[in-house]
């Protein structure tokens, strides 16, 4: 007991002596949130759409009203009236507009007669996500119940390759927060616990520990405990900060029970990854190998976890991996606790998986660790 505590204390002291690492462990996941939020997810907003009104009747007015409502409400599009169809199409090809709506002559008349009234929508299919967003937003806007007869005829302009635009102003997606917390746990697990063994080995320091009565489990348990403590604290701080910058006040959102459950999920996830790191690093002796494996594993575990895209969208083989990936369960549980106000019942399956994984990983990690030169 005393021996394992001595190891734990040694690690904590060493970690705190590296304030830069402490700061980076917290900052980097939060920066991930900003970058991921801006580059992947997030709804697109203020997509410029040109409207060419060749009808100039009451029907066209009605369409314009609907589009203005779309502009004012969800702000998906920004409507720009253009008089010349030729100019609008040219601008679409240039990428100025993400879509062009054409209200053809006779639209009001068709509408009044009750026959099929069509508006045309031209999209730039070089940018599929923006195109899909514009298409669905406009289709929804003009197809009110009772107005089914207004249909949107979609016409695609010829594809043309040009640099993809970067959108400046997009809200951070709050649903990414669980993923970011898991990312923090992964980084923590990778740079504490088993990593100390690799460093000790690399620096030739481990020899002097092996000369003492320390047992294999003293060493593994001591290192896992210190890694667990450090990583859990980092993960909670990251959870707090990333929520804050995306406008969530955790203390309003969560009950004590909810927070404790989240903490339990974080602890179990950390324990599992710490054990896994021992399995992988238990015999490594060069930090560079850890660097390369770490970068690889981060992606392997993170992206198929559903942290960014829902696992439902995966092909079967990737789904199969997601099922054994502990991060899948962590993300699922954290998301349910954070946004759906779920109780223990909703996450007990996730927690059971994480607990079993953690126990197996620590056992395997102890076995993999070589207490010998």
């Amino acid at each position, binding site marked *: 007991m005393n021996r394992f505590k*001595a*190891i734990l204390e*040694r690690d904590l002291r060493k970690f705190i*002596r590296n304030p830069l690492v402490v700061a980076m462990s917290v900052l980097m996941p939060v920066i991930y949130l900003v970058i991921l939020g801006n580059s992947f997810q997030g709804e697109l907003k203020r997509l410029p759409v040109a409207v060419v009104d060749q009808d100039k009747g009451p029907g066209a007015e009605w369409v314009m009203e609907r589009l203005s409502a779309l502009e004012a409400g969800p702000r998906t599009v920004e409507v720009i009236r253009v008089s010349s169809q030729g100019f609008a199409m040219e601008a679409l090809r240039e990428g100025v507009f993400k879509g062009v709506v054409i209200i053809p002559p006779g639209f009001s008349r068709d509408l009044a007669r009750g026959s099929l009234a069509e508006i045309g929508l031209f999209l730039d299919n070089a940018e599929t996500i923006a195109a899909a967003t514009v298409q669905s937003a406009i289709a929804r806007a003009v197809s009110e119940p009772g107005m089914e007869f207004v249909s949107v005829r979609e016409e695609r302009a010829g594809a043309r390759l040009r640099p993809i635009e970067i959108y400046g102003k997009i809200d951070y997606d709050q649903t990414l927060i669980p993923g970011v917390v898991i990312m923090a746990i992964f980084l923590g697990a990778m740079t504490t616990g088993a990593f100390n063994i690799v460093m000790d080995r690399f*620096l*030739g320091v481990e020899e002097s520990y092996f*000369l*003492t*009565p320390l047992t294999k489990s003293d060493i593994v348990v001591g290192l896992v405990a210190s890694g667990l403590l450090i990583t859990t604290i980092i993960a909670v701080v990251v959870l707090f900060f990333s929520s804050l910058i995306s406008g969530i006040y955790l203390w309003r959102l969560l009950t004590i029970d909810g927070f404790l459950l989240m903490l339990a999920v974080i602890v179990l996830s950390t324990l599992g990854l710490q054990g896994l790191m021992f399995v992988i690093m238990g015999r490594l002796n060069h930090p560079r*190998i850890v660097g390369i494996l770490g970068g690889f594993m981060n992606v392997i575990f993170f992206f198929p976890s559903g942290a960014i895209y829902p696992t439902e969208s995966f092909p079967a083989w990737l789904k199969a991996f997601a099922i054994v990936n502990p991060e899948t369960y962590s993300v699922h549980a954290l998301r349910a606790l954070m946004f759906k106000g779920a109780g223990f019942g909703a996450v007990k399956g996730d927690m059971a998986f994480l607990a079993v994984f953690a126990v197996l990983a620590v056992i395997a990690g102890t076995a993999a660790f070589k207490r010998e030169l």
Partner: protein
Amino acid sequence: MYAIETENLVKKYGGLTALDGVTLKIPEGDCFGLLGPNGAGKTTLIRILTTLIRPTSGMAKVAGFDVLKEKAGVRSAIGVVPQAMTSDLDLTGLEIMDIYARFYGMGKKERRERTDELLSMVGLRERAGDLIATYSGGMRRRLEIARGLVHRPSILILDEPTIGLDPQSRRVVWELLEKFRKGDNLTILLTTHYMEEAEYLSDHVAIIDYGRIVALDTVEGLKKAIPQKDTMELTVSNIDMAKAREAVSAHPSVGSVAVNEATLIISVDNGANAIPELVDKLRALNAKVTRVTLKEQTLEDVFIHFTGRPIREEEARKVSFLLGAGVPRQWGK
């Protein structure tokens, strides 16, 4: 009972035999020096005795405990100062001492007293609160000696304790070991490739070469083992060294002859008389004799007598094919 006892220890690394049947008996309270050049197998032997690696065959007992079957017993009986520096740079001297003391289950008060006592003895009390990263090589070594003694082991094992230290720090370490040796009936086993070190510190010296013990006695005894009393060095040119050696060996008062580059190292009786005769012999073969020295025997000569070559400093170093510099530390230095 012996403090350390080995029987026919063998350690093979693939095709390389690092230890080739080592049998040793070190009595309690002895200061035992294991003298050998780099790559002789000193670190390998120490690592087997300290439970870090397993022998390929053979038996070893340390403090009465079998190194394979009673590892825990061995580990609490010994204090070890490994060849490489092994103290964590980002801890302080005090922290290292305390953490190690806890590994041996020492209580708080006992730890504080022992740490204090040892740090004073090795002259690090003032610097105890500083990070080890700020220590010099000599200070680090002294700290590691103190660390090895923190739990009052009955056997202290040091693997090349002064390697890489400047002459002054080396002296300090020697004096320190002298001091510890006098108290506590401590058994000391140290390896070295420095003659003066073995001579200065050891009661008994074993000479190890290519994994084999080639001689074992007191320093005096070893010196007596060489029949010739003097060592003559002749530096020659303009002659094949094998031929020169042959010519010199033929002289009746010459014992063993070793060759070190252009120098013949000759053990000889009554060296002063032999000088002109040997020089004449070489000249007769058209050789030039550029330098002659004559000195009294040292342990170095003993080494040469038993191994046929002087101790060299060069080093067998292996690097992994797959990982480059990722591996060699395992081999020690």
